[in-house]
């Protein structure tokens, strides 16, 4: 498995001093309309009568963090503390209201597995589609197709529309596509809570291999303190969009557990 891992053809060079992820003073504000306006007419009416009010919701305020190359970094916090928002900003899906995010390297976002899967297409077609969305070239997918298929253990079902797959099988395909490349940064957002125990172990092995053998940096979000302690060395604790604590995973996890 290990020797089969291939780097994509063009790999950006990373200087050693720069952190792989640098989040500087990031604030994210959502405008929540007091009522949902669905039509132009409603909008104009409200605009004219000056009834257009927004409630501001700060999902993140002045969050800063640096992740060095090779770190294993966890983000902990209760639901609604801003973990997913932060990950989405780092992955480039969301644009922060204020502040700056810099990424040095290739990201494999396992935020929501299988984005862009179309369940009417076969697994083979979906592997290409999902690979394209993850930034792979067609040649790269061709080259690594067999490895993806064998990791996901679905050789017999390749030509079957994915609507006939179980959710565990879908997750396997998605995980296999997302990790076939050796990323500089792997972002994992509780994506591993699907699939059976056996497959979860296999995913964990793969993540460990990437970290240990390839120096991949890990950014991990989980509710499970045991998983965080097992995987990560550094951690940050978010509460209501503010960094409450940051430091070694052990200390942060201890403090976080006590507060529960």
């Amino acid at each position, binding site marked *: 498995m290990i020797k089969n891992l291939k780097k994509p053809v*063009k790999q*950006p060079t990373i200087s050693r001093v720069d952190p792989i992820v640098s989040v500087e003073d990031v604030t994210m504000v*959502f*405008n929540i309309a007091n009522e949902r306006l*669905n*039509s*132009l*007419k409603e*909008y104009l009416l409200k605009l004219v009568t000056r009834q257009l009010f927004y409630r501001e919701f700060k999902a993140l305020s002045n969050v800063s963090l640096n992740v060095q190359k090779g770190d294993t970094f966890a983000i902990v916090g209760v639901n609604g503390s801003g973990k997913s928002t932060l990950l989405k900003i780092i*992955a*480039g*899906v*969301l*644009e922060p209201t204020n502040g700056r995010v810099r990424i040095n390297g290739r990201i494999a*976002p396992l*935020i*929501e597995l299988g*984005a*862009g899967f*179309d369940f*009417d*297409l076969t697994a083979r*077609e979906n592997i*290409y*589609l999902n690979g*394209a*969305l*993850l*930034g792979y*070239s*067609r040649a790269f997918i061709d080259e690594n197709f067999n490895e993806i298929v064998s990791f996901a253990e679905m050789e017999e079902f390749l030509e079957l529309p994915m609507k006939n797959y179980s959710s565990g099988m879908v997750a396997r395909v998605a995980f296999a596509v997302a990790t076939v490349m050796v990323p500089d940064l792997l972002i994992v957002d509780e994506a591993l809570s699907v699939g059976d125990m056996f497959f979860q172990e296999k995913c964990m092995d793969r993540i460990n291999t990437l970290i240990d053998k390839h120096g991949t940096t890990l950014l991990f979000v989980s509710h499970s303190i045991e998983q965080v302690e097992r995987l990560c060395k550094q951690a940050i604790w978010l509460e209501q969009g503010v960094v409450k604590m940051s430091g070694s995973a052990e200390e942060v996890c201890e403090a976080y557990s006590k507060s529960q």
Partner: protein
Amino acid sequence: MDTINDRLRNDWFILSSLVSKDFKLKYRRSILGVVWSVLNPFLMMIVMAAVFSFFSRGDTATQPFPVYLILGTTLFSLMSSATSSGASSIIAAASMIKKIRINKMIFPLAKVVFELVNFILSLVAVVIVMALFQVWPTIYLLYLPLLLFYVTLFCAGLSLLLSALAVFFADIIYLWGVILTAWTYATPLFYSSSILPQLMIDIMKFNPMYHYVTYFRSITMCGIQADIASLMHCYINQELWLPAWQPPGLIENLVCLGIAAITFLAGYLVFRATQKRFILFV
């Protein structure tokens, strides 16, 4: 970080993957499959030719009406399908936009490319109809890629504009359906502009589709004049002699390009200015 070239290549790979996905899904359940892309405009033309042979349609009697008809309707349906599916493309791709970092312009542009490929397939039907009515291609048919470039640019601009606005006001999608219907009748697809009063002909100059449809007909039916039967008909009815189709000149090319470029620029700028907020609304 990736170079611009790499990013463009990847965007193109995503776009072509989306287009081929649309094709696979469109015909997945049908037996004839992609043949429908040819059959559909052909059958539509037969229906319309049958219906409109009972209505007054102006000077189209001097030329093979089915050819006149299919040229107009296929090009118009390229525009109407591309813009109507383009308009809802961002909303339809909400799940992807929320989850992955992606150049969002790909979605409306993929719809336009899909309809363009579909149009090119439907040209087979056009060729069949031309052969049936013995309209032989001339050298001016070489203008076709130029026309397709104009129309694609025009549709891309409209799709970018509509898809961006539809994120904030979903009503746009329904409104656009009505506008397309009105536009279909406001464009001389199954009648000739010569039956219109002078005022309408002047207004017609502001209809971009009028220019594109006329361009398409003029390069395809270049030099076509009446056949014997129509000649007799003209003679008996003392109708004025109608000039044959002329190939498009420089002015007509500039007009077509100008409309396309302005539309594209407007769509592109609106899309670029609003795309960061899509994720908060879809």
